[in-house]
């Protein structure tokens, strides 16, 4: 039976530096969750804290309703896949996978036949059935990754923790493995938490994504939810390219440079920033919008074109993407209207 993982108000400092500043979250049984964040955001620290590899100052970790603190390392049964796999280089692939089983106390240790069966099943599961006798140095990066996964699964973990599982692989292998891992998760239904700094990886794989920044969770939701409804400017920015336009809120409308640019019903008066994805602009006749200016750059990638629109009262030119033809022309005077934006009040 898959187990739920609950993290309650975890705090952790490295010297003076606060790595985790009160993190709480729950991973549902059988869920595949991503911890997404830039480097230094505390995601790996959180993963290690859950595994018991870091001592935390405050807070607790629960597996279902068992406090992890009450469990020894052995009894925690965490399947941890390290960023660089940490395969035991002096042991064969087979022995790497068997390690967790052989390390058990004699009474709990399966007999040789059982170990043999389980290791081979796992090697088959990760499609390495033929390579049991090899040593880690004789494997490719992707193969090592799968050995590490099989080794972690061998101890029948309560939960599976993966630290940047694809970080050390090249692009094509990454893609293949991503898909494979998704399928594997569907098959074994293990509660899984993985760390990544790659938003595409997180959104493609995970049921839900927790976005970490400066040691706190900024948002925890499904990939769709966090993309469509980012709770904070950071989340919005981190998930994809955005243009930021400062606006004035008055009477349910957002004004830029004194002109109405966006509908802001339900927002109180004050100042705010509009976060607009590049493809959510529409080009229009000059003067039809306060966001008017000159096209200062155009280029095309695949079916899309990208253009930079330099607007007089904006510090940075707006980046605009589109599929429509004809393409904007360099030096052309145009205006941009906003189709949709995220609005965050400035403090």
């Amino acid at each position, binding site marked *: 039976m898959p187990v739920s993982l609950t993290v309650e108000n975890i705090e952790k400092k490295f010297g003076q530096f606060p790595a985790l500043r009160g993190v709480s979250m729950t991973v549902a049984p059988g869920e595949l969750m991503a911890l997404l964040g830039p480097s230094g955001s505390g995601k790996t620290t959180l993963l290690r804290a859950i595994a018991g590899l870091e001592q935390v100052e405050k807070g607790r970790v629960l597996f279902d309703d068992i406090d992890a603190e009450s469990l020894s390392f052995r009894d925690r049964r965490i399947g941890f896949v390290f960023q*660089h796999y940490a395969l035991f280089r002096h042991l064969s692939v087979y022995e790497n996978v068997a390690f*967790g089983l052989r390390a058990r106390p004699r009474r709990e240790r399966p007999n040789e036949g059982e170990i043999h069966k389980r290791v081979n099943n796992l090697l088959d599961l990760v499609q390495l059935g033929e390579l049991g006798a090899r040593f880690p*140095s004789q494997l490719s990066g992707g193969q090592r990754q799968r050995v590490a996964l099989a080794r972690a699964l061998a101890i029948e973990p309560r939960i599976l923790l993966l630290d940047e599982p694809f970080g050390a692989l090249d692009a094509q292998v990454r893609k293949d493995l991503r898909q494979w891992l998704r399928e594997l998760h569907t098959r074994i239904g293990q509660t899984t938490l993985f760390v990544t700094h790659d938003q595409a990886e997180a959104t493609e794989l995970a049921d839900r994504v927790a976005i970490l920044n400066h040691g706190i969770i900024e948002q925890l939701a499904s990939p769709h939810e966090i993309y469509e409804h980012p709770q904070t400017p950071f989340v919005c920015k981190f998930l994809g390219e955005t243009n930021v336009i400062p606006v004035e809120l008055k009477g349910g409308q957002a004004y830029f440079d004194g002109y109405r640019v966006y509908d802001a019903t339900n927002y109180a008066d004050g100042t705010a920033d509009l976060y607009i994805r590049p493809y959510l602009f529409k080009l229009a006749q000059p003067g039809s919008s306060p966001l008017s200016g000159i096209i200062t750059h155009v280029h095309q990638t695949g079916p899309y074109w990208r253009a930079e629109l330099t607007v007089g009262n904006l510090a940075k030119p707006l980046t605009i993407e589109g599929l429509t033809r004809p393409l904007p022309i360099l030096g052309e005077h145009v205006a941009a209207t906003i189709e949709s934006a995220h609005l965050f009040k400035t403090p």
Partner: protein
Amino acid sequence: MSKMISASRSQPARNGSALRESNAVKALLIGTALTFLALFLFLPLVIVFMEALQRGLTTYLEAITEPDALSAMRLTLLVAAIVVPINVIVGIAGSWTIARFDFRGKNLLVSLIDLPFSVSPVIAGLIYVLLFGAQGYFGPWLREHGIEIIFALPGIVLATMFVTFPFVARELIPHMETLGSTDEEAALTLGASPWQTFFKITLPNVKWSLLYGVLLCNARAMGEFGAVAVVSGKIRGVTTTLPLQVEILYNEYMGTAAFAVASLLAFLALITLAAKTILEWHYAKEIAAMRHNS
């Protein structure tokens, strides 16, 4: 290597002259190195054995089976058998502490480990005389309790330990530092106990460095003269180690016997060398794999 060679063969016109010139330089360098080795290392070794066998095999055998020589041999092996395991245990513990933890005074500790290398062995011996000698800090107390340290086996062991301590730690620290702790963490998450982790992961990971360290430590432990000379008291047949016995015999105008005993030491050194070479040759692949695989 093979790539380089085939590459240069495929472009003989362009690389020919440069290659020939570098070959001449290479030959000269190799020649110099070999001559140097032959003169300064191999020749003395040959002379030791020649001098030792100068008066025939019977004299040689008599010299090395003489009671004092046997006793020196026994003492030397005993000292090595005590010192090496202690240095291995302390060296592993020390290196592990240094490689794994950051703490105040860590740099000082690392320098301290190197101290025996920079301190003259004679001083090392004198330190123990100052501590445990009759006029030393603990001397009166020790004498009162009938404990002999200096001019007895414990003193020789201590002095040898001091001098040979860095060998194991010095080999292990850099290796452990490059290895990092993730392998150990992986073992812990897989449910291994700290002892299992140590014996099945940490130790196998550093076993080559450790073996090198042990070989060097052992060679020095058996060959140490200066520090041991100070704390030995030179009681014949009791506190003379092989190197001291060599000196004694030489000073007694017993050149042949001195060289016979010296040949025992040289023989032990050759065994050490052979062990090292065999290990390297036999496990070259494994060592290379260990070093390159991360």
